[in-house]
C-alpha cells in the first residue's frame, strides 16, 4: 500500500501543479480586495500539494502506513480482477453505444455479460437481463420521456 499511496500523492501533486500553472492566465480581481478568479483555486491547489507532501513524508519517513504491510492488490484474486475488468469494459462499451444502438439491445448484452462473469447461471442471467432492461426502458423512456 505504501508505494500505491505515494504514487497516488505524486499524481495528485502533478495534476495540482498543472492546474496551478493555468491560474496565472486568470484576470485580476478589481475592487474585491485584490481577490480574483484565481485566488481560491490557487490557495486550494497549494494546500492540496502541502497535504500530499505531508502524506508522503508520513509514509516514507515515519513509516506509518495504515494497515501496515497490506498490499494494494491484496485480497484481489485473478477471477476478481477479470470480473472487474469485464464489468468496467462492458459498461464503457454500453455508454459508448448509448444513442447509437437501441437501448434495450445494448443493455441486455451488457447485463448478460456481467451476470455471466459474476458466475450466475446462463438462463437466469438471460431472463434477468431482459426483464431488468425492459423495466428500465419502460420507466425512463416511456414513463419519464428520457431520450435513451
Amino acid at each position: 500500500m505504501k508505494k500505491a499511496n505515494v504514487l497516488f500523492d505524486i499524481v495528485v501533486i502533478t495534476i495540482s501543479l498543472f492546474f496551478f500553472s493555468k491560474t496565472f492566465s486568470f484576470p485580476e480581481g478589481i475592487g474585491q480586495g485584490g481577490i480574483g478568479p484565481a485566488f481560491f483555486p490557487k490557495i486550494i491547489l497549494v494546500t492540496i500539494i502541502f497535504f500530499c507532501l505531508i502524506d508522503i513524508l508520513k509514509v516514507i519517513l515515519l513509516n506509518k502506513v495504515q494497515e501496515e504491510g497490506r498490499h494494494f492488490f491484496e485480497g484481489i484474486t485473478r477471477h476478481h480482477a477479470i470480473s472487474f475488468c469485464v464489468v468496467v469494459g462492458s459498461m464503457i462499451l454500453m455508454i459508448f453505444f448509448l444513442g447509437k444502438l437501441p437501448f434495450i439491445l445494448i443493455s441486455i448484452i451488457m447485463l448478460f455479460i456481467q451476470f455471466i462473469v459474476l458466475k450466475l447461471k446462463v438462463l437466469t442471467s438471460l431472463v434477468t437481463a431482459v426483464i431488468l432492461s425492459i423495466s428500465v426502458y419502460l420507466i425512463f423512456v416511456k414513463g419519464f420521456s428520457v431520450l435513451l
Partner: protein
Amino acid sequence: MIDALMQVLQPSVFMYMIIGVILGVFIGALPGLTATMGVAILVPLTFWLQPQEGLAMLIAIYCSSIFAGGIPAILINAPGTPASMATAWDGYELNKKGQTGLALGINAIYSALGGLVSTIFLLVAAFPISRVALSFGPPEYFALAIFGLSMMISVSGKSIAKGMIMGFIGLFIATIGLDPILSYPRFTFDNPNLLDGISFIPIMIGLFGLGEVLSQILESNKKEKVKKIKVGRIIPNKQERKQMRKPFWFSSALSTIIGAIPGAGGDIASLISWEQSKRFSKKKKEFGKGSLEGLAASSTANNAVIGGAFTTMLTLGLPGDSVTAILIGALMMYGMQPGPVLFTDHVDFVYVIIILLFIANLIVLFVGLAGANLFSRIMLVKREFIWVAVILFSIVGAYALNNSYFDVWVMVVSGIIGVILRKLDFPLGPLILALILGPMAESNLRRSLSMSLDGTAAYFFSRPITVTLLSLAILSLVFPVIKNVIKKYKTKNS
C-alpha cells in the same frame, strides 16, 4: 400547514413512499449497500416526479434503509449500514440466545421512535433557527461555510492528511466552471460541458453507487450464510420497555444533536450513544452480551440522527451527513435552495418534509414489526443481481439528469476513482462536504470583500455571528489534532 398536509395526503405520495420503504429495506438489509448509495442512484429517478412525490420516496429510502441496516446486524452479525455497527454487538447476541424476534422488534420500534423524536425536534427548532439565519449576510454565510468545512477533519477517519487532501480536491472540483463573480471560465479547456461546473449528483452516484459496487466485485470473498429462522416474540413486555426507557430518551437527545453537526452521521451517533448509555447504565456488564438497553440505544440513535441532519440541512443549507448532502442536490433539482430562504419562499414545503418524515418513521414501525418473519429471506437475494442493477441504474440515472453523456462519463470516472480511494483508505466524507460548501465559501468571501470599504478581512471581525462561527471553526479544526497528539502521547507512555 394545511396546504402541506393536502400535498402529502395524495395516493401517489403514499405509493412512492411505500416503494421507497421497500427499496430502503432491501438496501439496508443487504450488507454492503448503504442508504447513501440508495438515495444517490434513485435521485435521478425522482427528477421526473412532483417534488413531494420524489422526496417521499427519498425520505422513505433514507429512514427505512437506516433501520433495516440493523436486520443483518442482528441475524448474521454483519451490519447492513455503518450506522448499525453497534446494533450487531447486542442484537446478534440476543439472536444467539434465541430472542431473534425481540431483537428485531426492538430495532424496529426504537428506530421509529428515535426518528419521531428527532422529527419533533426538527419541527420545534427549525423555524427559530431559520429566523436567525435570515439575518445572515455574505460574511456570515462565508463563516458558516468555513465552519461546515472545518468538519472535514472530524470526518477524516484514520488520517487527517488524507481527509484534508480529499476535502481540498472537492473544493477544487467546485471551482471548475464559470467564476461566481466575474463569470470567467476556469479550468474549462473550451469544453462547453464544463461551463456550468461539474454536476454534483453524477459524482455522488459514481462514488457511492458504482464505486461501492466495483469495490465489492473486486474484493468479494465471503458469503454470509443465511437461514430461514423462526423469530418468536417481537414486542417487548412492560418490564423490558421500562428497562429501555432511559437509554431511549438519552440516545434520542444525544443523536439528534450529533445529527445536527455537519458531517457527523449515524455511525458516530450510534457508537457514542451506545458507549454513553453503557456508562450510565446499572447493568454495564451486560452491554455487548445481549443487553436490551444497548440495543435500544443503538437502534434509537440510527434514526434519531435523521431529524438533526434535516434541521441543519433545511435551516442552514449545510449537510448533516452524506445522505442529506445528496438531498440538498435533490432539493436544488426541484428549484429549491436549502437554507433560511426555503422558510420564506417555500415554507409549505418545509412542512411537507416534516410530515413526510413523520409518516416514513411510522411506516418503518409498521414494516419493521409486520415484516420480521420476511427479513431473513431478503438476505437470500444474490448480491450479484443487485450489483448489476445498481450499475445499470447508475448509468441511466446519471444520463437522465440532464440528458448528457458527459454526466455519465463523470459518473464512471468518479466510480473508478472511488474504488482507488477506498483501496487507499482515503475518506469520501470530506470530498462531499467540500463539493457542497466550496461554492458557498468562495462566492460569499468575495461578496463580503466587495462590501467592505477597505477590501480587507477586518470586516469579518466586526460582525459577532461571523466571529463566533469562525472561532467554532478554528476550535473544531484544532481540537481533533490536539486529541490525536494526547492519545499518541498516552499510548507511548503506556
